[in-house]
Each structure stands twice: as C-alpha cells, then as structure tokens.
C-alpha cells in the first residue's frame, strides 16, 4: 500500500495516469463509431501496421524521438488503411481477407525491421520492443504530454463533428443527399482513428491497441440504446481501463501496460454482457423467470 501511495505522489505517474485516462477516453469514443461503421478490424490492422513505421522512423534518425516514431507509425498506419479499402473495392477479395493480408504483411515487415534495429549498436537500448505490448509507466513526461495533448485534440474534433459522424455512420446516402461532403468526412474519421491508434501504441502496444478501441465500445452498447450515451459510457470504460492498467503496470518495472489495460476492459465487458440492465444475459434470465412466475400465478388464480 505504501508503495502505491508513494507512486501516486510522483509527478510523472500523475501525468502518465492523465495521459492513459485521456487516451482511453478518446479511444472509447472513436471506437464506438468504428464499431458501428463495422471498421473494428481496420483499427487492429492499423495498429499492427504502425510497427514498421516506428522502426523506419528510428532507423532514419537513429534516435528515439517520439514525434518521429509517431509520424512513421501514422504513415504506415494510413497506408495500411487505404490499402485495405483499395483492395476491398478494386479486387475480388472481400474486406476481411484484405484486412488479414495487410495486417500480417505489415506486422511481419515490422518484426523484421525490429530485429534489424536491435542488432544496431544504438538499437538494443532503444526500447522499441516496448511498443509491442506497451509500457506506459516508463514513458518520459514529454512523451506523456504529447499523448495527452493529442488525445484531447482528437476528443474535441470528434465532439465538433459528432452530428455529422452520426449521420454518415447511420445513413451515408441520406447524408450525401443533404449535401454533406461524405467522402471528406469518411477521410477525416479514418484519420482520427489512425491517430488515436498511433498515439496509443506506446502505452498499450501495437498488438492490443485495437482492444482498447473496441472492447469499451461493445461493452457500452449493452448499457444503452442512444448513440450519445453509448459514446460517453464507452469513453468512461476506456478511461477506467487505461488508468487501472497503468496503475498495475507501475507496481514493478517490466510489467507491460497493454495487457492489463485490455484485461480490465475485458472484465468490464463480461460485467456488461452478463448484468447490463436491458440486454445482459443474466438480467434477461431473471426478468424472464419473474415474468413466467407472474404469468403462472395469474393463471393459477384463473383456475
């Protein structure tokens, strides 16, 4: 307990917590739209595709500057997203096949490059391997501030365009009929999605980032039938997952953050699927039993 108390007092930990909180919030909110647009897997592909970009960024500059690494990640992440959409629209391959192809190709290249980087003299101390499972606790404060700032910016843009995102997600054709620039809005959303994935990979890691995007969103869907509420609940779930995962991984050096964030999100998911008021499995069972008993009692009275 004392250890945790001391840790919470440390300025850097506080920043890290604020950072993962905002990250979880942004990723839960954007994840809700991604889920409803049936783009969950694209987020996963983008996260995996960020790895080669990170490595190339490092190899070109020879130093571990987060900005450079994130730019590299954004470039390959966006490239992957557009490759998927291009393959799905221009070839006979379906989207799921395209996602699988792009994800494994980019990630494979990423691992090859990572091996190369670690053989470089400056490479083995680079800590690039922490991008695989994420290491929030080890982030320096400038990196954390960058992540928090970017997450806050993404949140703002999403709130500003909430109404438009809602319409293009529900009925893109009608949106076009109203004169909304649907292609531009799609592009904007895809960019926001790539951005949230990219800023999240240092804390959560490329392998599990998609889980922070999607798990809070599917959990939130169980609690409400309104998009604005779903987005808020999903953001809160994401934020809780981010914070708890970070706290656990700060307990000792070498505990990765990503897996604990994802485990927290998954526990929230199980609670939701079982106990959510209107849709939870157990809630429904209890409700059905009560209705059945009520019916039986009424019939008993009739007899």
């Amino acid at each position, binding site marked *: 307990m004392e250890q945790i108390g001391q840790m919470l007092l440390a300025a850097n930990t506080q920043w890290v917590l604020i950072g993962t909180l905002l990250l979880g919030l942004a990723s839960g909110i954007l994840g809700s739209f991604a889920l*409803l647009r049936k783009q969950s897997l694209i987020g996963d592909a983008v996260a995996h595709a960020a790895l080669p970009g990170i490595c190339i960024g490092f190899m070109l500059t020879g130093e571990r500057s987060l900005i450079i690494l994130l730019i590299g990640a954004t470039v390959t992440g966006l490239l992957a997203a557009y490759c998927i959409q291009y393959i799905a629209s221009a070839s006979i391959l379906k989207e799921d096949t395209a996602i699988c192809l792009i994800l494994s190709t980019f990630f494979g290249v990423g691992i090859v490059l990572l091996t190369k980087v670690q053989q470089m003299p400056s490479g083995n101390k680079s800590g690039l391997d922490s991008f695989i499972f994420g290491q929030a606790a080890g982030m320096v404060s400038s990196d954390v501030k960058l992540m928090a700032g970017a997450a806050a910016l993404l949140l703002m843009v999403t709130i*500003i365009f909430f*109404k*438009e995102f*809602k*319409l293009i*997600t*529900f*009925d893109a*054709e*009608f*949106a*076009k*009929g*109203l*004169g*909304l620039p649907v292609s531009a809005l799609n592009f904007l959303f895809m960019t926001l999605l790539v951005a949230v994935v990219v800023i999240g990979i240092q804390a959560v890691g490329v392998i599990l980032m998609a889980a922070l995007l999607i798990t809070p969103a599917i959990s939130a*869907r169980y609690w*409400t*039938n*309104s*998009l604005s*509420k*779903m987005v808020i609940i999903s953001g809160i779930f994401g934020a809780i997952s981010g914070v708890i995962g970070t706290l656990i991984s700060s307990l000792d050096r070498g505990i990765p953050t990503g897996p604990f964030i994802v485990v927290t999100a998954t526990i929230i998911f199980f609670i939701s699927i079982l106990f959510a008021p209107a849709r939870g499995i157990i809630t429904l069972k209890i409700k059905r039993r009560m209705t059945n008993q009520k019916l039986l009692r009424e019939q008993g009275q009739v007899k």
Partner: protein
Amino acid sequence: MTNPIEIRNLTVAYDKTAVLKDVQFSIPKGSLTGIVGPNGAGKSTLIKAILGLIPKVSGEIKIYGKPYKAKDRLVGYVPQRGSVDWDFPTSALDVVLMGRYGHIGWFKRPGKEDTILAKESLKKVGMDSYANRQISQLSGGQQQRVFLARALVQDAQVYFMDEPFVGVDAATEKAIIQLLTDLKDQGKTVIVVHHDLQTVEEYFDHCILLNKEVIASGVTEEVFTVEQLHQTYGGKLAFLDKGKVMVEQKR
C-alpha cells in the same frame, strides 16, 4: 412556368454497361409520379443519379430550372428501408431529426424548434407515440414511416421515395399514400419508385415506364397501357381477368 424536374439525355453506367440510356422526361408541379419497371430497370439508379448520389456519364438534370444542388434544400429523399442498419443505437425521433441537419448547419446541435418540427412530423405519419422508441424495436411499416417523417422535416419542394411500400402492412401503405396525396395537394412534387402494377392507376396521376430507357412518360391513363407495359416488361407479364396485370414472379 418551369417544371420542377427536367431530365435530358441522362446516361448512367456502372463499370462499362449503361444502366440508364438517354433518359428524358419532365414532371409537372404538384404531381404524384410513379416510376415503374422490371427489376434491374434502373429505377433506384435514376433517383440516385438525380440526387447526385452516383455520377452520371452525361445529361442534364434540372430541379426548378437549375442544376441540382443539395444546398438548395429543394429535394427530400426517402431511401430504401433496407439500406441502413436498424440496430443502430438511436430513437425514432433522433432519426427524424437527421432530416433537419441540412438546415442546422455545421458545429451546431438540433435546437428546440427542430425537435418540435420533428415531433410534428412524426405525428403526421401517426408515429408520435413512438418518438423515443429504439428503432430496432419498430416494425417494418413503422420504420418506413420514420423514414417518411425524416423526409417531411426536410421541408422540401420535391420528394423522391425509393420503394416506400416494400414490406409494409396495409395500414401503413394507406397512411403513406394519404400523406403523398396531401403533399401533392400542397403543390409539392412527389416521385415514387414503385413495383406493384396493381396499384399504379389508383395511386399515381403521372407515370414513367422505365427499362434502362424511358418507354413512356406522362399522365397515367395515357402511359399505363397494356401495349406499353408489354414493351417495358418484355413478355414477363401475366394477364389476369378484368384487364388487371401483374409481373410474373420468377424466384
């Protein structure tokens, strides 16, 4: 006076095959027009091309004498009910409010006035008691009414509707046709993609027979003849007694 809709030499193609060839017609103000033709005749494509939802190869589309621009807000649109995911987390009222987005503009939320208009519109289609209902819990007919209400709050002059009678109950069909007739009486122009030949004469005062090209267009009594229907459907017609016609079901 200019007609609300003038289409000249409109050609639309998917890949290399022309779906609509040299389509040409005009529709007078205050009319209720049915677009009739077999499956794959390009009925929905025609509507989408007019609305600019899909690109055209050539041709001229004029709404009230001007090239169509969505920003003019002259046109309301009811897409096919099957074109959206009804499990989307939203309420009937919320969907109707989407019809106001063109009026509300960027960066703003729907205001009180928009909500009042949306509720009025739901009332017009007999759905006011379902305003807060999650849309997946509505029946097919109710969902269609919500789509109609959304088009009504657009407050347009011309309405395009894509198969509004598909999968709806008889009561909804009656309610919709009553509403369309009311719109017509208010001087609005309504164009409906329709496939039930039995009801064409009863519902529509104007009619376009379409099979990739316009076979005939104009007043229903003149256009909707056995001979021209034969030409449109190319022998896929079955004739029932009392001169009623229907399309042979090929499934």
